């Protein structure tokens, strides 16, 4: 798994600018191109599609997301905290005999425990995902490209950053063109 992209793309200025952006006509040709880029050993690159393309994880050589574990831990933690709070409130802080039941009325603690567990899990899922994706990141060199506007519409792209050890303006561009790109563009920093 390549190292995470930095919070802001402020790596030292590269003479080659930010990198290269190649546009493809459809998901099929993009998938094959990704396999070629992956096999060529590039690490600092990405694909851009208007919807998640099935099979692209493997084609890019990505390892699976760690998000489920974050959600599990936070969810169980939240549930435990809620159960603990209720137990403490009803056994220690302000014990009251309510409808003749014992102070530690665990069945009655289940609803809130469950709900709070789900809440913490959901918060973990959303903020974990945003954190793993380093979002929000409103500025990025790729937005300078006019063609890139199609990435959220109907365009399929591969971008390779110039900081990749294997990056060479000429050879990388040639690889992208060989892989079936409709157009290859250089992006400034």
């Amino acid at each position: 798994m390549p190292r995470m992209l930095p919070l802001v793309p402020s790596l030292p200025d590269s003479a080659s600018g930010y990198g290269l952006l190649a546009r493809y006509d459809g998901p099929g040709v993009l998938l094959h191109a990704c396999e070629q880029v992956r096999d060529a050993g590039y690490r600092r690159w990405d694909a851009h599609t208007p919807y998640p393309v099935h099979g692209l994880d493997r084609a890019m050589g990505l390892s699976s997301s760690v998000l489920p574990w974050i959600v599990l831990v936070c969810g169980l933690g939240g549930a435990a905290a809620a159960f603990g709070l209720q137990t403490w409130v009803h056994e220690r802080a302000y014990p009251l005999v309510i409808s003749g039941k014992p102070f530690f009325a665990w069945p009655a603690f289940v609803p809130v425990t469950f709900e709070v567990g789900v809440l913490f899990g959901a918060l973990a899922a959303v903020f974990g995902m945003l954190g793993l994706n380093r979002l929000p990141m409103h500025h990025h060199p790729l937005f300078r490209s006019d063609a890139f506007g199609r990435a959220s519409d109907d365009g399929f792209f591969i971008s390779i950053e110039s900081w990749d050890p294997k990056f060479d303006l000429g050879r990388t561009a040639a690889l992208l063109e060989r892989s079936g790109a409709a157009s290859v563009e250089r992006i400034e920093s």
Partner: protein
Amino acid sequence: MSPKPHEMGHDPAAVDPALVSIPHDHPWARLPYVFAACGAVGVLASLGLVWGSVVEPAQFFFSWLTSFLYFLSLALGGMFFVLVSYVTRASWSVVVRRLAESAMATIPLFLVLFVPLVFGMHALFHWTDADAVAHDHLLQAKQPYLNTTFFVVRALVYFACWIGIATWFLRQSRLQDHGDASGRITDRMVKVSAPALVAFSVTVSFAAIDWIMTLDAHWYSTIFGVYFFAGSTVGIFALLILLAAAMGRAGLLGGTVTVEHFHDLGKMLFAFTVFWAYIGFSQYFLIWYGNIPEETVWYVHRTEGSWAAVTATLAWGHFAVPFLFLMPRTVKRRTGLLAVGAVWMLLMHLVDLYWLIMPVLHSHDAHLSVVDVTSLVGIGGLFLGAVLFVLRRQPVVPVRDPRLAESLSFENV
């Protein structure tokens, strides 16, 4: 929900049935007889034990009822799986549907196995005791429903309905194997599956009420039918996983059932385990909270003496542990691990039924009897023998199902 099969642009050129049938010389072809023999031994042993006065008649009938309902719940679970597969036009389940159909096909056997229970009505249900009724105004009030004639009539209605549905769906499915590739048969089955499900839900609910809830005729719960249903869904998915795993290992499925299908079966087992816990907890919680003695007495019986340990086993073993075990993706995608989970759930489902039924007989302490084991072996052997016998008679995968092609290529997210 997918469109009609005859609208699809693919001619389901049949998979070669030879690839997905049990060959006549295969060890599995002999298995039905092995199981049936075990079953016969178990049944005879059980009968022998009660005739020889080694066990009380009441114990015999309660043990028989438990084993009967356990395996019947698997057969009914199979029916549910088949009906829901059709009504939702699911494609992933096509490769395992025959296994569920085979479980469903055993229901006529249960009509026969029900006969001892008719003889045992007086031992099982105290509302059949005229003396008890005469002194109990509640039982008198329930007499229009709780009388032996109506009870038997209702049982016959349930079986007629189930056998009708099972036979029809089995016949249509077999017909499909032999030639009609247009998908019209599937269309018909989809149309019938919806009203069949309505009939299923009503008959299964009332069967559970009649055969389990009225054991303790002063108690009642509106969710009881749903609870029994929930247990049977857990049972069928566990059974399907085990059958598919065993047959896959024996090379009988021709590679049709892949890790993707096991993943989905595992998801369903997980989901219905949680569903069972939700229904079970709803029932317990509302009765606990309302604290009305008329209702709580049922749970009090199940927390006396060693029954408390059984209740705890259910809570932890039927829910908490499998919830954590079946959650990870890796477990669901490793057939060996998943099969372990399936065996565990089948065991827990048995504990569940035992916990529902036996406290009526042994009110202060759980008390295992030898006839519990023999009736389990007896009815179970006959059930498994019947399932495998049905499986032997046709391809184990519906070779001409219009959705088979899609099912074969199925990939999980």
